[in-house]
């Protein structure tokens, strides 16, 4: 491996060593957890603010508008102003709502997205947990969010919310399959479920290029299915504002609403990060086979830049979907999944298994 220059493991390793030399191992682990937790909280908040800003700017440009431009330079502080507004807003208590569930639903949603973030490798040597079943873990945890949505819809005692939540439940349960199968394609190629292992396997080229057409098909299926799974774009039936006013979060206000809002954007980031990691090589620079000179040049770009560039590319594509397409109807949504995406991914995974068996991939 030639990309030693931007390895974060030396930095994290030295911090770990320093902490261990100062205090007992148990305390060191505890303090590491606190540090990571604080860093993540900060990152989470900043990322949420930035993604909201980005979405507004992207949709504004697509719609021939300027977008936020009043608060701060180019409206950069707009989302912060919104955050302050949401923090100061009254939390409207709903009569006849199930108060406990109504209260914890936003937390379930946000914790699910928080947990998924733990397994994302941001750069070489920069991730919190390196599971041997990373792909499986991210998928499992990110689908917990639907529980929060269902609880939110049910507990608000609103008819719009309930319909929205039920739609969301049906949608996420279905699309989980396609997301899983499309990720499975790369797992079959790389032979590992560990995210770092998948990245290492792309050192000589990303799977989307190495994996022939089936990998590309898997990528497209992943894009569509994951857009549906995060309730965005043409698949935002759970909150279809022209039908259900705001769907499952109709009755939420203030910071509780902000949690849903934030979780939606963070989920978008997680999905994009997962897609970038699995299909586009994560932090791995753009390498072509054995062109040593070219690969060397690419290595000079830090791995964290590679990661965020790829992630934001996928985020942009997801936003592009949302601002182009009309919304699907619930039965068409399920038709798309069960009649198109699922058969395609199944055939696809068979093909890939065959390719791998014959050693036809690079």
């Amino acid at each position: 491996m030639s990309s030693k220059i931007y390895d974060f493991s030396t930095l994290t390793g030295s911090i770990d060593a320093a902490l261990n030399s100062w205090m007992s191992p148990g305390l060191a682990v505890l303090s590491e957890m606190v540090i990571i937790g604080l860093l993540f909280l900060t990152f989470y908040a900043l990322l949420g603010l930035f993604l909201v800003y980005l979405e507004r700017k992207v949709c504004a440009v697509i719609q021939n508008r300027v977008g936020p431009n009043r608060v701060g330079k180019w409206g950069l502080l707009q989302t912060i102003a919104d955050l302050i507004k949401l923090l100061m807003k009254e939390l409207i208590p709903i009569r006849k709502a199930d108060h406990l569930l109504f209260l914890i639903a936003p937390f379930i949603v946000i914790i699910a997205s928080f947990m998924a973030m733990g397994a994302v490798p941001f750069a070489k040597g920069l991730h919190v947990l390196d599971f041997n079943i990373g792909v499986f873990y991210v998928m499992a945890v990110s689908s917990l969010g639907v529980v929060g949505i269902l609880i939110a819809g049910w507990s608000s005692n609103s008819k719009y919310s309930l319909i929205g939540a039920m739609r969301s439940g049906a949608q996420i349960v279905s699309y989980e399959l396609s997301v899983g199968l499309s990720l499975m394609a790369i797992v079959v190629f790389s032979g590992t479920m560990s995210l770092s292992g998948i990245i290492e396997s792309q050192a000589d080229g990303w799977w989307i290029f190495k994996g022939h057409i089936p990998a590309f098909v898997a990528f497209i299926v992943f894009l569509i299915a994951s857009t549906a799974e995060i309730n965005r774009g043409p698949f935002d039936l759970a909150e279809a504002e022209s039908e259900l006013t705001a769907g499952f979060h109709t009755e939420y206000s203030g910071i509780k609403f902000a949690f849903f809002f934030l979780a939606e954007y963070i989920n978008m980031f997680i999905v994009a990060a997962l897609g970038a990691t699995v299909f586009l090589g994560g932090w791995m620079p753009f390498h072509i086979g054995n062109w040593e000179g070219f690969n060397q040049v690419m290595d000079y770009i830090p791995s964290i830049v590679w990661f965020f560039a790829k992630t934001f590319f996928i985020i942009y594509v997801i936003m592009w979907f949302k601002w182009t397409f009309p919304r699907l109807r619930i039965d068409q949504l399920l038709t798309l999944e069960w009649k198109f995406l699922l058969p395609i991914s199944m055939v696809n995974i068979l093909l890939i298994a065959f390719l791998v068996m014959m050693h036809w991939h690079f």
Partner: protein
Amino acid sequence: MNSISKYFSDLFRGISSLWAGMRVTGKYFISPGQIVTQQYPENRATLKMEPRFKGEIIMPHDENNQHACTGCGICEINCPNGSIEIITDRVPNVDGKPERVIDKHIFHLSMCTFCGLCVKTCPSDALAFGQEFEHAVFDRHKLTKVLNQPGSSLKKEAKK
């Protein structure tokens, strides 16, 4: 077999139609020069309303602080919403005869629908439309305006 080919042709037709839409939005995304919205408070200096714009009703006064309103009340009669009230006064003119002049030409902007009947029917062309459009106020009473300026008088040539 036929249904299978239909399945795939449907699929590709669908994808190409989606791509057509994405091309339109993508084209606008990469050409930010297409922005059409006006930057309103910033462009105040350059923002010019059309000369015929019906912003409010004004009574043009000349440099001698004179207007053309004789207080005949035709605009008041013609207004469908009662947004014009005219308070007239009788003052003796040079010959000593009492003559009708307006004391106050009151215009309730909050009731006006800008139908233009007052301006059209005024026999002495004393009323006109102004281009002012920023009418937002915090107190509704500020929307009641007196159109004739204090101390103004009737134009001589309009007196006949």
